């Protein structure tokens, strides 16, 4: 176990190095840069811009900027935002709650609904429900998330007026109910794709288990369908699903970014877009590294969890 962990950790570090190099190169390919925001300011002279460039350390060769950044990162210093001068980790920390709230609630919806559709589809194989579920999942996978969000806003906010068109809460009303009211539409929109993935997965996993001998035995013993399902099917199918949850993390993050832009949600996705717009390199790099760490950790935890729950799986 220890060797496995060490091996995986060292691999993860190499991954992070690669991610940081890719990110840094791509980011610095962008012409313009952080001073473009002053391009239209009538009072900033070229002297001012040159001075700021030097103060921000942007006139150094690229490799030097990278090494400087990487060396600081290794020491735990993620740098400071070009925009508000705050430490990058603080900046990310201020936005993480909103994203986690959105991701959390949509994951709960996705798992609950997806599991239900998947198991029901598998146990009622070839029924109308199963068929609709399968086709529906395919369609759901194909709908552009941002467009689904727009349609949701059009129907539920503009036409029916039931749900707010954006924001996390109303100013001056920080009650849980108010948060939930604002959470409904974006989390459903974000959940859509994942309901589809979960239900497809759950369906095939359930089918696998149902066909196995011990379930047949259990059925022969006269156990009720429901108990068999709960005990064996769900228990067994849940294992690979933990892995899936880890693997899904990047796509949930991507989805969150898209959803946040449509619903003006104050999370990391919007922070990323804003920071990209201002070429706030330290924050963009911070977010890239942060999400990469999250994804790698997600995979790692999924692997470990599976290994711990099911010792049959060989750790390699």
């Amino acid at each position, binding site marked *: 176990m220890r060797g496995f962990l060490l091996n995986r950790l060292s691999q993860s570090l190499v991954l992070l190095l690669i991610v940081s190099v890719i990110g840094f190169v791509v980011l610095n390919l962008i012409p313009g840069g952080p001073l473009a925001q002053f391009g239209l300011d*009538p*009072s900033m*002279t070229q002297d001012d811009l040159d001075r700021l460039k030097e103060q921000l350390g942007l006139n150094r060769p690229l490799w030097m900027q990278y090494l400087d950044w990487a060396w600081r990162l290794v020491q735990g210093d993620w740098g400071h935002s070009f925009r*508000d*001068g705050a430490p990058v980790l603080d900046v990310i920390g201020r936005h993480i709650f909103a994203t986690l709230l959105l991701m959390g609630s949509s994951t709960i919806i996705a798992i609950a609904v997806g599991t239900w559709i998947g198991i029901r589809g598998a146990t009622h194989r070839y029924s109308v429900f199963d068929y609709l579920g399968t086709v529906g999942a395919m369609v759901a996978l194909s709908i552009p998330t941002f467009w689904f969000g727009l349609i949701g806003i059009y129907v539920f906010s503009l036409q029916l007026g039931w749900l707010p068109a*954006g924001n996390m809460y109303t100013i001056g009303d920080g009650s849980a109910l108010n948060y939930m009211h604002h959470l409904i539409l974006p989390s459903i929109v974000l959940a859509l794709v994942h309901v589809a993935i979960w239900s497809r997965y759950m369906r095939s996993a359930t089918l696998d288990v149902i066909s196995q001998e011990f379930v047949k035995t259990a059925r022969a013993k006269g156990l009720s369908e429901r108990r068999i399902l709960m005990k064996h099917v769900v228990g067994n199918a849940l294992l690979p699903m933990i892995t899936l949850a880890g693997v899904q993390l990047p796509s949930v993050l991507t989805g969150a970014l898209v959803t946040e832009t449509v619903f003006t949600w104050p999370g990391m996705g919007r922070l990323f877009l804003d920071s990209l717009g201002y070429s706030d390199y330290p924050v963009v790099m911070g977010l890239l590294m942060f999400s990469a760490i999250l994804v790698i950790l997600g995979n790692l935890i999924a692997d470990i969890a599976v290994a711990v729950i099911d010792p049959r799986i060989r750790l390699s």
Partner: protein
Amino acid sequence: MTKDFTTGSTYSRRDALRLMAAGGVACFAAPNLFGKPASAQNLPTTPTGRVVVGLSQEPTVFNPLMAHTEVDDALHFSVFDALFRMDPKGVLQPNLAAEVPTQKNGGISQDGLQWRVRLRDDVRWHDGEPFTAEDVKFTLELITNPKFRAWRTAGHSLVRDITVVSPTEITWRMEEAFAPYLSFLAETFIVPKHILEKEADPNAAAFSQAPVGTGAFKWAQRIAGDHIELVANADYFGEGPYVERLVLKYIPDMTVLYTQFVSGDIDLVDQAYITADHYQEASKLSGRVVTLEPGASVESIYLNLEKPQFKDPAVRQALYAAIDRKTIIDAIYYGIHKPTETFMPQNSYYYNPDLPAQEYSIDKARQILDEAGWVPGPDGIRAKDGVRLSFSNATTAGNNLREQVQQFLQQSFAEIGVEMTISNLPGAVMWGDFWLKSQFDSAISGVTNVIAADPDVTNRLHTSAIVAKGGKGSNTGQYSNPEVDALLEKGARTFDPEARRAIYLRVQEIVRQDLPFLPLFAYTNVFGRKEGLEGFESNANTRVASWHAAGWHWKS
């Protein structure tokens, strides 16, 4: 012939005199700095209520001296004070200063080099420390500190020998006479010496995350990516504040911003205001006051005059004649903007209303090009001496209305045998070197040319401001005219408003003739606020609607 375009220019000789005398007289009007609100008798005795201001960008720079953009002003104007403030009429009013120094009252020497500013003695920082001339000195020195990531240093870099005469008096010497500096000081907020002098690195000071000022509102808290909350400063030396809480709410999408204004979540729409297409609908809302306020920006097509296509004045004239400005303004911008012939804001004292008006005529445009020898080639695109009349046009990608204008112009120009391609870039790319170092063919942009209402446009139109040719400024169209250069140099040294006016009227005349850029319209902003929010006044001489939140109050 220019009758249509003279609205907004109602300055008379009396105003000019007022401008000159303003500083000297206005100190008697203090503490009611900006004139009494209409309903002065209904003002609440203690600050009450809350105002939520909606902004489409997020204020993030809280140290007002650091490099920032206009949206940050929304906070700076409420938390901090400057020596002076520019009022809606373009007249300087004392703020932390007891009077505005002029050559008449002796605050500025006749040669414009010696400055003396008297300060108020009743101002305290939010933490209770008294404000003194030391703070002013510290502020001016911090700006030119090479380690500090300061905003503009123009003007400030000319200041020498700052001397604190007494806690309420400060003097300095200017390296050369620079009239716009007075206006620059209206956008130079004073920061507390006693807090910042202890910081080793002024860029990363805690102050930048929780600023302390002298203004009408104190910093309360910030929910990053969402809003900033300010509370009333009960000990404010000036007028107000009358509301207890001021919330600056960030809503990145203009449509959502508007929706929240309709639903009542937002009390007042600031930067970038209500979009043109929502104006009609907004003006019919009950319980909302929606007004059209002239802005300071002018939307123009900037031509890179070093490109062979644009060197011939005939081409510029023909292009200008081919623009159907009326249709663009009426259809795409719902008629809210005003046509203009100059870079100067129309409500400015220095605005020239007598410039020849553009006439839209495709025939005339064709005729101009025919006469200048631009002949259509086999592909229908005109050419002369091997130069094809084909160019690209760029602006910020994702700016919908502007993209519509581009596509409309593309069709208009095609009619006169000119090919315009569109290649838009993300903002962070567009306004970087591509714009500043004149790498574009042509660009559409809304630009504010004046700084805090000062008419000096050296930075935009002087030959020495062409970065692509080693200059320092933002003359990105590479316009160069010796007569304009001489006039601008003279204008920057002249303190007398009337004398300056003559100079800048002439500059506008020459520029209209040369057409280095093609003006499309002067911006009108659609302001919206809740009914019952009183004491609000718009001010085109500042960059935000919340320039004077101290005077706001709810109708009781």
